[in-house]
């Protein structure tokens, strides 16, 4: 399956991030089309396109928009989730750096569709370069009359606020993000009510991922049939994949959904010379790992679920045979323990348990019966936590046990570093060897 650059098509222009660079290739030509349509027709187009959320959950975007009650007399809000922090996910940051105006044009169209006059871009705080670039894009778009009052004479007005977070993975969870955007601790809310009904300031709110919104101008411009000519029936469209780990050419690769992982891996130059794929994760540390036996599977929402994983953010991380699974899983649990917001007991306490026990296995001090304890604790977190962070934390261990139980057995007597030399897994292993 060939690569199909759309969002990434002009990133090699030195000014791809500017208004001029974007307009040179048809940028902002979707906007007048959308503004000439009835807002419901815009929602209908996105619905018909089958676009699904690119942030991890894969919820149909048009459907989400249609949940916003109309003529309710309340302000509506669009909030772009630009809090990309999922370990392994690294595709929204490049989009905002290289093509921020696709995001801005998408924001204007989406806001028009859901009748929002305020939009927010919640960007994680640790990326000043992205924050200054999105600020600059909003300034340019405002000066050009695409943002502000009476946009292109349509009568539609929109204000876009670029907002910095301050270091909290949990704020990628949409309701935690909303609390954070209200100036509070970023802790998730009980759902329902869903944000479409009671979101920011308890008003109807759509929360969408950066890449999702960046798709919108291309859909409006080129039509539903064109969009559906990529991908599968259940996973239409193209995807900004970002491949990382022990591959020869890590980087951003845009291809239709449904591309087999083996082909994407080949574009990325394959696994490191002289090594084999050991395990890979289709989209972030929160999705179950797969092995080299799964490489021929198409990267779609449905195929990944069928294989026992998830497409997640669509940013495959690939590890070779030098890597200790126990070490990787222990590292991810360090992360979830650190990022658990503390609101609910299963996630707050459970992650300490898993974390502590996993470290014993990593150091070769595990006890056989503790594998059952780990399994039990994961089972107590999964589905019993307030939000998906708990579910995510309960994912790496059971998934790893499914394929690499022997390595955890080894952890009852031998440290992972004695079996898998950490130096061999580094990208500078040749240099230091």
């Amino acid at each position, binding site marked *: 399956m*060939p*690569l*199909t*650059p759309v969002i*990434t*098509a002009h*990133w090699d222009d030195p000014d791809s991030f500017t208004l001029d660079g974007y307009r040179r290739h048809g940028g902002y030509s979707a906007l007048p089309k959308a503004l000439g349509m009835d807002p419901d027709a815009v929602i209908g187009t996105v619905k018909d396109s089958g676009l699904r959320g690119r942030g991890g959950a894969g919820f149909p975007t048009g459907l989400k928009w249609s949940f916003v009650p109309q003529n309710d007399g309340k*302000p509506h809000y669009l909030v772009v989730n630009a809090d*990309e*922090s*999922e*370990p*392994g*996910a*690294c595709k929204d940051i490049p989009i905002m*750096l*290289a093509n921020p105006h696709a995001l801005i044009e998408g924001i204007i169209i989406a806001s028009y569709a859901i009748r929002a006059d305020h939009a927010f871009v919640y960007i*994680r*705080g*640790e*990326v*000043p*370069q992205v*924050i*200054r670039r999105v*600020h*600059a894009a909003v300034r340019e778009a405002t000066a050009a009359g695409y943002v502000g009052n009476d946009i292109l004479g349509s009568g539609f007005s929109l204000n876009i*606020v670029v*907002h910095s*977070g*301050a*270091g*909290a993975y949990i704020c990628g969870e949409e309701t935690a993000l909303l609390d954070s*955007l*209200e*100036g*509070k*601790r*970023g802790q998730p809310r009980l759902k329902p009510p869903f944000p479409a009904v009671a979101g920011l*300031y308890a008003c109807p709110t759509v929360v969408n991922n950066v890449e999702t919104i960046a798709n919108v101008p291309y859909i409006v*411009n*080129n039509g539903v*049939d*064109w969009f559906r*000519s*990529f991908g599968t029936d259940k996973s239409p469209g193209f995807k900004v994949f*970002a491949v*990382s*780990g022990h591959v020869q050419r*890590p*980087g*951003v*690769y*845009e291809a239709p959904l449904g591309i087999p992982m083996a082909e994407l891996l080949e574009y990325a130059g394959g696994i490191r010379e002289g090594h084999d794929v050991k395990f890979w994760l289709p989209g972030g*540390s929160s999705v179950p790992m797969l092995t080299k036996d799964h490489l021929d599977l198409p990267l779609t929402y449905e195929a990944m679920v069928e294989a026992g994983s998830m497409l997640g953010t669509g940013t495959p991380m690939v590890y070779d045979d030098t890597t200790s699974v126990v070490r990787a899983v222990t*590292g*991810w649990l360090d992360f979830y323990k650190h990022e658990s917001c503390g609101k609910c007991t299963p996630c707050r306490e459970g992650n300490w348990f898993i974390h502590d026990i996993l470290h014993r296995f990593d150091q070769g001090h595990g006890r056989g019966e503790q594998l059952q304890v780990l399994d039990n604790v994961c089972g107590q977190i999964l589905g019993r936590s307030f939000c998906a962070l708990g579910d995510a934390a309960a994912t790496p261990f059971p998934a790893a046990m499914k394929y690499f139980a022997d390595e955890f057995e080894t952890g009852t007597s031998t440290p992972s570093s004695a079996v898998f030399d950490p130096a061999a897994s*580094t990208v*500078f292993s040749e240099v*230091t060897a």
Partner: protein
Amino acid sequence: MALTELTRAEMMDLAARYPQPRSALLPMLHLAQSVEGYVTGDAIVMCAEVLGLTTAEVKGVASFYTMFKDEPVGEYHIGVCINPGCGILGGDTIWETLSADLGVGHDEVTEDGKISLERIECQAACTHAPVMTANWEFMDNMTPEKARQLVEDLRAGREVKSTRGPVIRDFKACERTLAGIDDDGFGDVPATDDLMLAGLRYAQEHDMQAPEAEVI
């Protein structure tokens, strides 16, 4: 430097950007850090006064987020990603090297106040692993040697650029960018690098492209 009436005015500007002023609290705390280097008691009071909150409410928020510091960090706050995506590919080795060299651990500052270290989680740049940050600007594809050089250069006051372009400024200047008060003038740097262009270049070299749309 202490907070001034100018800081208060800028905080009020931030608050006015939002339908409800409290939404500005995170940017306001970044702004406070841009003046004082960390979130001081005075900053808590000023944020509370501007937003009509109690100091406990503001403190409760500030303490939740790892980027808000309750004591001074170094002039250059250095992050090393130790999340497995980077850690396994070399981040762990880099952390051990720097921490041993500098004699400081997580969230600690060197005696000269120049450098502080933080074990950071995923920076959304896994394609560029192992990743570090210097006052939150990306430092990509690092090695222990490059990490040592980075710290040495910053300590010596030499100009260092992020691998993505911008010059690395001190911690307070970076915090002002995050507050989003004004254009910091550092935006005119390349949009992309080889890794971000890997797929596009492959497609160009092999004559691959997305199907053209029918003219609508």
